[in-house]
């Protein structure tokens, strides 16, 4: 008798389990491994599943170096995620490869996207369609070491506002030994880090140019603006000697070690810099030029729906993506990851704008530009080589700019789908 009850119970248990399984939809979400991002996403998924008990989201992660290849290879094998994270710069490739489907306009109406998100989401638009939306965006700012500021006789609560003030402060901070070797940098110089974005989207514009035209498909810096911008950048090492490419191996390492007074870096560096114990640091907007012109570079990872997702999975994916781009998710992301909300309303709250750390990044978002890279790695390499030709081989700035512009145009043309 007892056995029979037990059996009946088991059968009942199994049948409810089977019933649930038939009702539940499972979708797969892919992103790359970055500790805080993975933790934040786990929390978001838990919240989402609580609100939608019939949907389960399977969270799959890969190391960053493999991530793109995995997505592409999985797609070739007819598998892969339903919702995936992608860098905005990969969009052309992913659209050409038919990896993504346009966001359904019923859940994501265009006028809503355009009015509620920061304008940089237009980088996810191809033709008439949006292919993805970000949870969070990143911008650049100037980090400065308050201890070195004080030691150099500068006011640690009044960081440089213009390029001239930036150079002057850096000159005061920089120290050299008897044989002229740099021992403390005024500011880091690291084209391989964020400096190439600073040069491309900020300095060129401050010298009156625009880096590209025709949807970023035509290189437009082989002119006075490009030359002046690169001259300014390379003179920081060659003439003013406030920094040196390769000093302490990497710019961010030099700043972390307290060996550099200032560095230009993004929101994504906050997590790493927050563990600094030896000195206090501050953040300020990127310096304006003499006329007060400011610019910034913003970038983001967007979430998009795979082209092969359909039926129930598509409905579930739409719900999940809508949740990932909700103000609620953005708040959590800001708290856990430190990246800025992609919606104006969630980002520009009084509290956020007044925040001494997030404030400068958020103000930067208002006037930020987003380069539509065709082959990000190659275009970045091209900027590194351009600076190195001047810094290491003594090539003239004019020749180096000309060579860089031609090479980058070739890269862009070759990458066109």
């Amino acid at each position, binding site marked *: 008798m007892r056995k029979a009850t037990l059996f009946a119970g088991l059968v009942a248990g199994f049948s409810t389990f089977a019933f649930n399984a038939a009702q539940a939809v499972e979708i797969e979400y892919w992103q790359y491994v970055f500790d805080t991002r993975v933790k934040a996403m786990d929390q978001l998924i838990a919240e989402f599943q609580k609100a939608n008990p019939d949907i389960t989201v399977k969270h799959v992660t890969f190391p960053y170096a493999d991530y793109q290849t995995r997505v592409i290879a999985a797609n070739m094998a007819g598998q892969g995620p339903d919702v995936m994270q992608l860098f905005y710069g990969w969009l052309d490739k992913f659209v050409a*490869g038919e990896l993504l489907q346009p966001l359904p306009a019923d859940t994501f109406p265009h006028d809503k996207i355009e009015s509620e998100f920061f304008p940089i989401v237009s980088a996810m638009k191809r033709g008439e369609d949006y292919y993805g939306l970000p949870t969070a965006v990143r911008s650049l700012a100037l980090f400065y070491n308050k201890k070195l500021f004080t030691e150099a006789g500068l006011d640690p609560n009044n960081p440089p506002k213009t390029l001239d003030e930036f150079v002057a402060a850096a000159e005061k901070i920089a120290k050299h030994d008897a044989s002229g070797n740099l021992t403390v940098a005024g500011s880091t110089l690291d084209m391989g880090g964020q400096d190439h974005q600073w040069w491309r989207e900020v300095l060129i514009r401050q010298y009156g140019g625009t880096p590209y035209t025709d949807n970023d498909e035509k290189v437009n810096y082989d002119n006075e603006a490009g030359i002046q911008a690169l001259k300014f950048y390379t003179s920081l090492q060659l003439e003013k000697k406030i920094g040196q490419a390769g000093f302490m*191996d990497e710019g961010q390492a030099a700043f972390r070690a307290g060996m550099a007074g200032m560095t230009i870096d993004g929101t994504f560096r906050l997590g790493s810099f927050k563990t600094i114990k030896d000195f206090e640091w501050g953040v300020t907007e990127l310096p304006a030029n003499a006329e007060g012109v400011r610019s910034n570079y913003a970038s983001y990872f967007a979430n998009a729906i795979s082209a092969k997702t359909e039926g129930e999975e598509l409905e579930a994916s739409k719900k999940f993506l809508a949740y990932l781009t909700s103000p609620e998710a953005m708040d959590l992301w800001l708290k856990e990851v430190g990246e800025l909300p992609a919606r104006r309303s969630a980002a520009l709250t009084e509290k956020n704008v007044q925040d001494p750390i997030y404030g400068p990044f958020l103000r930067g978002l208002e006037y930020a530009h987003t380069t539509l890279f065709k082959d990000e*790695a190659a275009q970045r*390499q091209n900027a590194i080589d351009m600076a190195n030709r001047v810094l290491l081989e003594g090539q003239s700035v004019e020749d180096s700019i000309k060579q860089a512009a031609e090479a980058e145009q070739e890269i862009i043309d070759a990458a066109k789908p």
Partner: protein
Amino acid sequence: MTVSVERKGAALARPGGMRASGFSMRTKRLLWVWGFLALPILFYSVIRFYPTLQAFWLSLTNWDLLRPAKFIGFTNYTKLFSDPQFWKVFKNTFTYLILGTPISLVLAFAIAFFLDRVRFLHGFIRALYFLPYLTTAAAMAWVWRWFYQPPPIGIINDVFGMLGLPQQPFIRSTDQALYSIMVTAIWAGLGFQIIIFMAGLRAISTTFYEAARIDGLGEWAILRKITLPLLKPTTVFLVVFSSIGFLRIFDQVYNMTTNDPGGPLGSTKPLVLMIYQTAFNSYAMGYAAAQTVVLFTILLIVSLLQLWILREKK
């Protein structure tokens, strides 16, 4: 088991026995041999030969991972040979090979030759030389990368400073970077070559040396007339092995220059790194396959050439 096989064999050897089992002893043996060989052959066909042939085919296409490959003839090859970047990389690769192989072999031989005579702490010293070979190339490259830094953190430049020598840019210079990296690659491979050379030295019978000494030959003559000729098989092996190693150099370069892979200005970039970047940064798989075919051809020619030059003259 063996007993019964032998009995069967004996039975088969008799006239008429052959017909009974259908196969001759020879055929049976062959079947056994091929039965065992089939497994590795199958394995190699699937994971080596098939992808190799596939790479040859891919090199004639414009495959970019995303869209189906389209046959484009020899376009990838003409593009490659007219690319100045390729010739720079080609020159770098051969600099690694032409300087790296002889220097590392001469060093390894000299160390092995003298270490062979050392009795005091012999095992310990040998272990010290071998240790770098056991270390991960990536970890080693990072340590060296920090050694080479400019002041205030680079140890080598610190020592130079103390000795009053001028500071060197090392891996931040287009002239010095390649040699700076080559030194670490030589150092890393030295232990293995020393061990192989020592094994070769030990294998030479001492009677030759005794006879030579009785005949009154000097040390130099012994080295030239006995040691080196008898060490030839070892040398051939190491020359081929080390050449292939230098032609395929990647880990050291990539890890010492991650911020600007193969830089500055491509001055340290070997062919394998170029292939890696073409394939996994730009996703130009067809073009990368063409580069791979070129590397394969170079490896084949260099290896055959060395085997031919160092062949046993009869």
